[in-house]
């Protein structure tokens, strides 16, 4: 049986205390713990000394809609709530409903899914397996088993919510020791498997702000081996408005193909201002397929996953065109 390493656990009631505790040596932030705890069980964070729980901080959960239609989602809102709340845009409900399994959606949070650690076949195994080989970069070593030529960690961005949030032009509100700031969800990420979040470790994601959809069509599609449980090995989110039959403000975002979500700007530029015909959809899908290079570091082969990119993009855009 896998047990947790010896850790302290603190659950303060104010955000200020959480921020202060996170500055401590080996502090790990936990909300639902559904990502942190299995990773700790596999000894992926040897530096871990203290689990700092957010759960007793009041006011961080819930979904509300402001007068102008702006949707505010607290970081501690469960993924299950996001999947079923009628105030939440359909694309987000689709993405939330595709996360893990019902039990983890009941426990996992919106903030936690957005910050979920990057994943790799070489890393997400029990430490006894990992010890059979030289440690990789993310395990504190000097090399990468996926692409040994370079000292780059290719661990995969595995959030289902992130691509959907970016497609809906959502922002996150972060609170840290120097006050708070708001940033587009896309700017929360770095394409680096080792340090995938562009925020300080003691900056806390407290809220997601989704602009009023205002006729925006949006959706999310997910590839994984099984119809449930699994992390994405490809996520596709798209959104646009149709004005006089032409595409306006399109967004196309891919998940689980790099260490951060990837916006396919070439396809967005192609789609903008044009009528959404089958030929245009096929062309955009091909562009999306060419824009990414999945590595051999997660489930199913990299070749297959790359071939599925245009297929999933095409299917999603066709569905949205028919809405």
């Amino acid at each position, binding site marked *: 049986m896998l047990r947790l390493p010896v*850790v302290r656990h603190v659950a303060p009631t104010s955000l200020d205390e959480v921020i202060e505790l996170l500055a401590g040596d080996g502090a790990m932030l936990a909300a639902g713990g559904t990502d942190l705890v299995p990773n700790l069980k596999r000894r992926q964070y040897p530096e871990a000394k203290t689990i700092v729980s957010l759960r007793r901080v009041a006011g961080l959960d819930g979904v509300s809609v402001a007068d102008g239609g702006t949707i505010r989602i607290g970081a501690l809102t469960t993924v299950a709530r996001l999947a079923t709340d009628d105030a939440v845009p359909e694309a987000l409900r689709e993405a939330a409903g595709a996360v893990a399994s019902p039990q983890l959606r009941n426990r996992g949070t919106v903030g936690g899914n957005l910050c979920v650690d990057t994943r790799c076949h070489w890393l997400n195994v029990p430490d006894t397996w990992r010890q059979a080989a030289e440690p990789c970069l993310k395990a504190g070593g000097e090399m990468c088993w996926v692409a040994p030529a370079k000292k780059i960690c290719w661990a995969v961005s595995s959030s289902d919510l992130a691509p959907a949030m970016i497609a809906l032009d959502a922002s996150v509100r972060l609170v840290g020791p120097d006050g708070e700031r708001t940033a587009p969800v896309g700017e929360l990420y770095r394409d680096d498997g080792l340090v995938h979040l562009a925020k300080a470790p003691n900056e806390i994601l407290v809220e997601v702000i989704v602009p009023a959809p205002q006729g925006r069509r949006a959706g999310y599609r997910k590839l994984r081996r099984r119809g449930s449980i699994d992390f994405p090995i490809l996520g596709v989110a798209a959104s646009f408005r149709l004005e006089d039959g032409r595409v306006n403000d399109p967004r196309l975002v891919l998940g689980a193909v790099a260490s951060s979500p990837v916006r396919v700007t070439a396809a967005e530029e192609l789609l903008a201002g044009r009528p959404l015909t089958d030929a245009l959809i096929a062309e955009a899908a091909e562009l999306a397929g060419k824009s990414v290079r999945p590595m051999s570091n997660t489930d199913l082969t990299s070749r297959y996953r790359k071939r599925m990119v245009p297929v999933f993009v095409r299917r999603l855009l066709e569905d949205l065109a028919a809405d």
Partner: protein
Amino acid sequence: MTVNGTRYDRDVEPRTLLVHFLREELGLTGTHVGCDTSYCGACTVIVDGRSVKSCTYLAVAADGADVRTVEGVAVDGTLHPVQEGFWERHGLQCGFCTPGMIMSSVALLEQNPAPGEGEIRHAIEGNLCRCTGYHNIVRAVEYAAAKMRGEEPPAPDWEVPS
């Protein structure tokens, strides 16, 4: 925390997981540990009305919570309709996944007393059965749903309609 209606006050090590607390501290070994990483669902219990996977749930996080395990679903020796359904419709072979399957099914029926087959399949999608008994498990949950609504359960698949 309250477990199956009984209140327990214990000091636990911060790293204690809910499943270890239930099994080792309280002796409630009905909740199983399968994959250890919250994929398989054998450790499913109900916390404050929601199904969760107790193998990655810190015991301290359940401080003050209402926890229900498979030991708590039968009342005074009478099987819960879900347990009866698993019995009547052969919803298990080896039985390893059964406690988790039962807790997911109980949680479903408390929220949705009349689920369709698709809803049942989605409700147990976080529980793996390696004997591939899903078909009979779905029939077991349909049996329980009918019983709990006070209706006659559907005839078993193996009964040829006359």
